[in-house]
């Protein structure tokens, strides 16, 4: 009662801020206990040699040796780290372009649109981990040379592109994207969902005006659709980075996990995770700063 009385004596603004603090309190508590505290611990762990003893654990301060071990001695870590990054940089544009295109397709009116949407979002339901299992089952077949063949004849497409005299780097990229296409389709579910929602939120009046002004479909796309959807390109970009970086089939994460649980080098595994986290953070900041200048906001 006492608290109630005290709250009712506050002004409306004050009451609102008290309510806000109360409603968000679970996250504040959770952030401190289950994110911030473990992060601080992980800094300490990365600077120490950790061993599990009876009834707890002991830490021995060893300075930066875990970091130098991860960076200079473990050559496999370095290689896998660079591999993961290059793979991400190659997959990112492919996923973004595909999901944008797929969203435009699914936004058009045609028979069976609902069924097509249900199928396109299916990969969201069949999470990444189970897909890996599907993949592993395929490797078994391929190992026994019973594979049913790839979707596309990549070599034939490669020859065709070579004949077009395109720069070899571009050809290589297109080929890699084609080879990875099923993978790209499967990791685009949420991105399609977000783009589709963005497309549906564009007021139809804008299209009517463009039509009356005599804009062609091509012009309408670049002058209306694209700017209106551009904030979501940024959102999708960030989501894709997060999704790929924290995906369970991520090679680097698996390697770090194996270091921790397999060989018991906890300190080194945490040091590796720190390198990894910093790399993501730097990448996201660069992208955010450079892309957000070109994003169009209505208000």
């Amino acid at each position: 009662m006492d608290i109630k009385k005290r709250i009712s004596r506050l002004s409306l603004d004050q009451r609102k801020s008290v309510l806000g603090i109360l409603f968000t309190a679970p996250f504040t508590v959770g952030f401190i206990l289950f994110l911030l505290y473990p992060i601080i611990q992980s800094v300490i762990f990365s600077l120490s040699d950790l061993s599990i003893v009876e009834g707890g654990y002991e830490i021995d301060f060893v300075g930066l040796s875990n970091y130098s071990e991860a960076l200079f001695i473990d050559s496999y870590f370095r290689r896998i780290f660079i591999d993961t990054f290059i793979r991400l940089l190659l997959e990112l544009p492919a996923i973004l372009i595909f999901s944008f295109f797929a969203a435009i397709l699914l936004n058009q009116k045609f028979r069976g649109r609902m069924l097509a949407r249900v199928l396109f979002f299916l990969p969201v339901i069949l999470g990444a981990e189970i897909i890996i299992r599907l993949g592993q089952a395929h490797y078994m077949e391929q190992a026994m040379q019973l594979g049913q063949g790839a979707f596309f004849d990549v070599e034939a497409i490669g020859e065709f592109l070579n004949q077009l005299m395109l720069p070899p780097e571009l050809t290589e990229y297109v080929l890699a994207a084609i080879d990875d296409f099923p993978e790209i389709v499967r990791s685009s579910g949420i991105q399609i969902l977000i783009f589709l929602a963005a497309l549906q939120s564009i007021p139809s009046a804008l299209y009517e005006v463009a039509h009356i002004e005599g804009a062609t479909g091509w012009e309408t796309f670049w002058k209306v659709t694209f700017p209106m959807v551009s904030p979501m390109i940024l959102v999708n970009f960030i989501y894709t980075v997060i999704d790929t970086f924290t995906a369970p089939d991520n090679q680097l994460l698996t390697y770090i996990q194996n270091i921790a649980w397999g060989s018991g080098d906890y300190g080194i595994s945490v040091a590796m995770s720190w390198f990894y986290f910093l790399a993501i953070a730097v990448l996201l900041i660069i992208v955010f700063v450079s892309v957000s200048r070109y994003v169009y906001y209505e208000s």
Partner: protein
Amino acid sequence: MSGRNEKLISRRRIRLDRTASRIWAVFRGILILGISFIIIYPILNQLSLSFMTARDLYDATVRFIPREVTYENFVIAFNRMNYLRALINTFLVSSLLGLLQLLSSLIIGYGFARFQFKGSNILFALVILSLLIPPSLIMLPLFLNFRFFTAFGILPEPGINLIGSSWPLVLLALTGTARRNGLFIFIVRQYFKGMSENLEEAAYVDGAGPLKTFFMIMMPNAVPILIIIFLFSFVWQWNDLFYSHLFLRGSSLLSLNLQRMTSAYFQQGVEPFIDGAHMANVSNAAILMYIIPLLGLYALLQSYFVESIEKTGIIG
């Protein structure tokens, strides 16, 4: 004269437009069919393999349609996965955590959408940051804190062991810090931000308190996004290996059992050794049994999922 010409040209243009849109419709149909095929191809492949005997798998003339249809793979997978028990456990754990995550993200997201306070923007930035932290960074400290749980100094050393129980995941879900929970908070916040405040003001004027307003007025309106959030968190928990492996060690969950089954060809105390090819068929059957409940749930809720995207208000 010129009027007739114009009419002719415009008629010709309309005809051209119509042909173009027809060509596009055909092209679009092929594209959509192709992409859909890529998505369901692995499942179809699994379906055919799971009914095959090992002999069919070695036989190069057998493709897609098994020569002798067998249910044996499903029987073996059923037994080795401890299916019924694991199914019930997984269902209970996923529903519990799904509901808790729903509740916490609803309350937290609503708080962010409606009430400004000092530092609310910074706190919201921390929500986004929580999505970015690689799980491997905090995996070990979290594990140790729950293994020797002292409730952060309240319980006496060495604390109690929460590993193997649902408590760690329940605590994470309740505080909105479970995996990808930040995404749900973000969705809820965007949704309520997009909703007009008139409704709440009317409720306040009529004398309802903030809690009553929230549960009686705002929550019923948000049912579509609540279902989407529940579906997501349920499915992600169902598919989760990382946290289940970390905190629910030794429990009989579908994802854990499936992994154990496919990684070990020979389980001690269970049935004899099964050779590689046969095991491939068995794991295909097991994967199908693993995804069928998810497919059922998706089929049941897909209309919410597909039709109410615009209602999620992801676009603020």
